């Protein structure tokens, strides 16, 4: 009972916070907040398959791309589409697609989830690390398809003029919903089964857990929210192209969930803010630097060198990240419990 009251208050005050931010913050701060919100959605769902279920996957860029394209095609009006498609005329279905904002992003999520179900069949049939390589390959294939099917995707030129419906009210609320849903999954029967699969698959099978079903559920749920996040991203950026959804995106999310702790949703939320903030702050690394009166010249990619070293060092020396595989509520609860002598 006390828990429910607390939860309701927490959710309502977060909603109020989102509303106030949207109302009073300037557009630059809001764009950073929007970015953080979208990355939080992506990282939370990515942590479900990687951290909670323990199946190493490299899929986000592919599923985000699917969500972004599907949402964009639903949002852009038909006359703008026929003007925009420069290489070939858009396909009939593309012209016919039209939907309001919420159904459009949900459609993006469902499309990603559908692909995830298709992929999970060959991948989870065998044990081992095939998920990683298949999803890594998928991220490249999706780009090849986008470029080679200009009637659906406008090829390498991508889609522009996507209506910018995604304000912070939408992004913040969906991030909140994602967080609540993920916590509910983690603490549910499914969540415990996922952790069992992660910790010892043989023991999980022996306990009667249908590991194929659990892994597929986790993967499809991740994919749904990644597609949703992709739709928000498309509407937030108003322009998308195949080159946006490279492995770089996946790598940023991987850094976030490793720093937050594989399996910890609250850790992921905190580290999203930290990583996105430092990405912004470390921008100077990519620019021309003066070291001992010598110009180093611009180094696009220097930040990524730093972040990949960070990832390796974290894996070697601080594998648990901020919160390990636990939630901050549990850690605090345990501390309080100790103090009261329980």
């Amino acid at each position, binding site marked *: 009972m006390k828990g429910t009251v607390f939860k309701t208050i927490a959710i309502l005050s977060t909603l109020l916070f989102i509303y106030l931010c949207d109302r009073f913050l300037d557009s630059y701060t809001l764009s950073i907040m929007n970015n953080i919100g979208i990355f939080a959605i992506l990282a939370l769902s990515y942590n479900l398959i990687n951290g909670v279920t323990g199946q190493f996957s490299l899929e986000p860029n592919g599923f985000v791309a699917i969500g972004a394209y599907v949402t964009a095609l639903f949002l852009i009006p038909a006359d703008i589409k026929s003007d925009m498609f420069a290489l070939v005329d858009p396909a009939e279905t593309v012209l016919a697609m039209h939907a309001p904002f919420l159904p459009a992003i949900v459609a993006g999520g469902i499309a990603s989830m559908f692909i995830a179900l298709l992929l999970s069949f060959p991948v989870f049939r065998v044990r081992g690390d095939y998920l990683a390589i298949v999803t890594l390959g998928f991220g490249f294939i999706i780009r*090849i398809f986008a470029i080679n099917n200009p009637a659906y995707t406008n090829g390498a030129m991508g889609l522009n003029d996507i209506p910018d419906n995604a304000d912070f009210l939408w992004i913040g609320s969906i991030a909140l919903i994602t967080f609540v849903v993920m916590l509910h999954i983690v603490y549910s029967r499914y969540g415990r089964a996922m952790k069992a699969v992660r910790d010892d698959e043989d023991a999980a099978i022996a306990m009667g857990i249908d590991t194929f079903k659990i892994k597929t559920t986790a993967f499809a749920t991740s994919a749904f929210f990644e597609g949703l996040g992709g739709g928000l991203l498309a509407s937030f950026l108003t322009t998308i192209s195949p080159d946006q959804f490279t492995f770089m995106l996946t790598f940023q999310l991987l850094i976030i969930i490793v720093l937050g702790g594989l399996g910890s949703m609250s850790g992921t939320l905190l580290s999203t803010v930290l990583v996105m903030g430092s990405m912004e702050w470390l921008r100077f690394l990519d620019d021309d630097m003066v070291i001992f009166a010598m110009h180093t010249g611009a180094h696009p990619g220097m930040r990524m060198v730093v972040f990949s070293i960070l990832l390796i060092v974290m894996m070697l020396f601080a594998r648990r990240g901020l919160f390990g595989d636990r939630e901050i509520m549990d850690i605090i609860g345990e501390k309080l419990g100790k103090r009261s002598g329980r």
Partner: protein
Amino acid sequence: MDLSTFLQQLVNGASLGSMYALIAIGYTMVYGVLRLINFAHGDIMMVGAFLTYFAVSFKFPFEAAVALAIFGSIVVGILTDKIAYKPLRNAPKISLLITAIGISFFLENLFNVLFGGVPRAFSAPEYLSKVMHFNGIYMPVTVVIIPIMTVIILASLLWILYRTKYGMAIRALAFDIPTVKLMGINADSIISIVFALGSALAAIGGIFYAVSYPSIDPLMGIIVGLKAFAAAVLGGIGSVTGAVLGGFILGFTEIFVVALFPELGGYKDAFAFFFLILVLLFRPTGIMGEDLERSRF
């Protein structure tokens, strides 16, 4: 397709397949011993090509440059294992995989920062860039030399694996690491040999690649590495001969499908992925592989 075109495509396929085979061997050997998908392996191939490029541009003769590049790649391969993988031998599998992807991303971006992301023209020595001509078939010398060299290299690799003590130790390691350690074998140095062999072959594959498609860039290893891994799974992961077979099958498929159906040319890089999915669906052990641990439904 007439006979001369067929023969020409056959040689092209053999040449492309050789490169995939050489790189696939590194994946399959590391997987066989450590059960690890070494994501950095494709990038070792890139390192090999780049080191050759720089050695040549420092006026080294081509042969010396190649030797230097192979040596450099071996050093990078062994260092990767010692620094990043060895401390994690007893860690959860996912940590090892995350580290591997971190190394891969690190190498790509390091070379990107140091040398720029623009593709560089790779200049092979004159005797390798000649074009031969007989019976109406024109083909570059490289497409003939590459398969021949590959066969020689593979024969020596098989000799190492099946006729020397080190090879025996490698094969034993693939079965059971703790028992091998009990037999008084230094498992870590044998694992280093595995990385050295794999990296050397990847570097050779990278140099072949750079000579045939005379352009190199820091991201060239990703897609080739991915294809080579698919080839290794197709042949049966853990099996060296399987990797070679898978590499050649993939090479021939890419060349012949594009020759027969030119409209599929844009999807050339996707074939390997579909092979991978099909193999996982219908024969997860690959062509020559031993039984994988199968997941029960």
